């Protein structure tokens, strides 16, 4: 029964593992893109300019109210032409085709960006206002205030939320399989189709996802512990 998972050309073991590596890669790059988007839009949401707040609000409402699959279809069918359109503005007339990894990263990154925005905004809001005021009174520059005082605290508070976003992002990457990127989901479909053993390959896929979840939980738990060092919660005082 398990010889279908043999490594090398006789079995699907190595292909499935490569699929898992691809899932981790595309999830990680999507999360990083998502956090970047999240920082930008959280800044927009917290800004004093109405128009920036409105743009950020529209973005998070749309992404959180529309199925992920639709967002992926939009980028899958329209991503390349959008990039070509942009390239044309800059004078490049050639044909550009985005590969499945890039499309997947942009799509899932955009989704995870909306969730990150809320997490980061909440974290910034939970830094006491007095700290901003003290920083300004002391005459700190923007970088010193935000980079050295606010950011480390935001990072610590946002960490559990980012852990949740990672979990959502990881599961959303399964949807990229519809665009042809060979990650766990796609690979187990291919293997199931060619061996006529769907049950065993989808079970293997479930185990791989749970394994990644377990490992990332351990990672986030230890990161949380590390960044909470020297911090005493308000309840303890």
């Amino acid at each position, binding site marked *: 029964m398990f010889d279908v998972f043999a490594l090398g050309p006789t079995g699907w073991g190595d292909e499935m593992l490569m699929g898992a590596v691809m899932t981790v890669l595309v999830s990680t790059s999507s999360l990083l893109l998502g956090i970047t988007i999240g920082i930008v839009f959280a800044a927009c949401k917290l800004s004093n300019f109405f128009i920036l707040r409105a743009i950020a609000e529209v973005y998070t*409402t*749309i992404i*959180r*109210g*529309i*199925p*992920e*699959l*639709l*967002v992926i*279809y*939009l980028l*899958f*069918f*329209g991503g390349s032409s959008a990039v070509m359109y942009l390239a044309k503005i800059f004078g490049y007339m050639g044909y550009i085709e985005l590969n499945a990894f890039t499309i997947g990263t942009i799509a899932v990154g955009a989704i995870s960006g909306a969730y990150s925005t809320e997490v980061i905004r909440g974290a910034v809001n939970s830094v006491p206002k007095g700290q901003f005021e003290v920083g300004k009174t002391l005459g700190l520059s923007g970088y010193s205030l935000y980079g050295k005082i606010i950011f480390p605290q935001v990072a610590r508070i946002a960490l559990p939320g980012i852990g949740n976003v990672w*979990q959502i992002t990881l*599961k*959303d*990457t*399964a*949807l990229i*399989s*519809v665009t042809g990127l060979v990650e*766990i*989901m796609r690979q*187990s*479909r291919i293997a*199931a189709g060619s061996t*006529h*053993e*769907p*049950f065993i390959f*989808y*079970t293997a*896929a*479930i185990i791989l*996802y*749970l394994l990644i*979840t*377990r490992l990332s939980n351990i990672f986030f738990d230890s990161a949380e512990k590390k960044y909470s060092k020297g911090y005493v919660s308000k309840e303890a005082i």
Partner: protein
Amino acid sequence: MRFDLMYESFFKIVEGVPLTLQVVSISTVLGIFLAVAVALMRISGSKFMSLPAYYFVYLIRGTPLLLQLYFVYYGLSQFEFIRESILWPLLKEPYWCGIITLTISTGAYSSEIIRGGILSVSKNYIEAAEALGLSQAKTFMLVTLPITVRQALPAYGNELILMVKASSLISIVTLMEITGIARTIISKTYAPVEIFLVAGSIYLAINFIIVMFVSLSERRLGIEKAT
């Protein structure tokens, strides 16, 4: 932007709304029963009950819904004994596979919401009910449940929106709901932006109605907006 195409496809995509709503509402209602059962198992205090419930929730929350759908639709049908069982008339239909998968998924997620709601019911109320001589079943039905509903409603509203979004996945197993129709039109017309805007607005409208409905019920149940 091709507005004529958007106008035309709007009426085609809207035809998928009944199927989306049908699948969402059937699996939501079935999912509530599953969720209450799982939540009660988890807080039962007996390890034989709480551990299976814990692993069930871990399994469902740790794996993508698409994979669960494939598992039910393709994976189970591999076995002879399932094809000969009484469940086969259900499991061979993508419609019922979609409902089964969504029910299991929302059952797992909502069980956590309900568990949180039950745990938030103050012990004083339970003790008061006991002192008044209410039976355990009556205490649950008359005291714990109403307070739980009140506590869990805001989070449950989010779960409903997630369900509407999740229902789009059943288009992958050939069901022609909103996303399924939208996908077909996109691949025919190659106008992804226009169709995305139309289908997306329909989803936003559905979710907006759900949000309105939930906040109305919240107000009726006297839930203060969390500050």
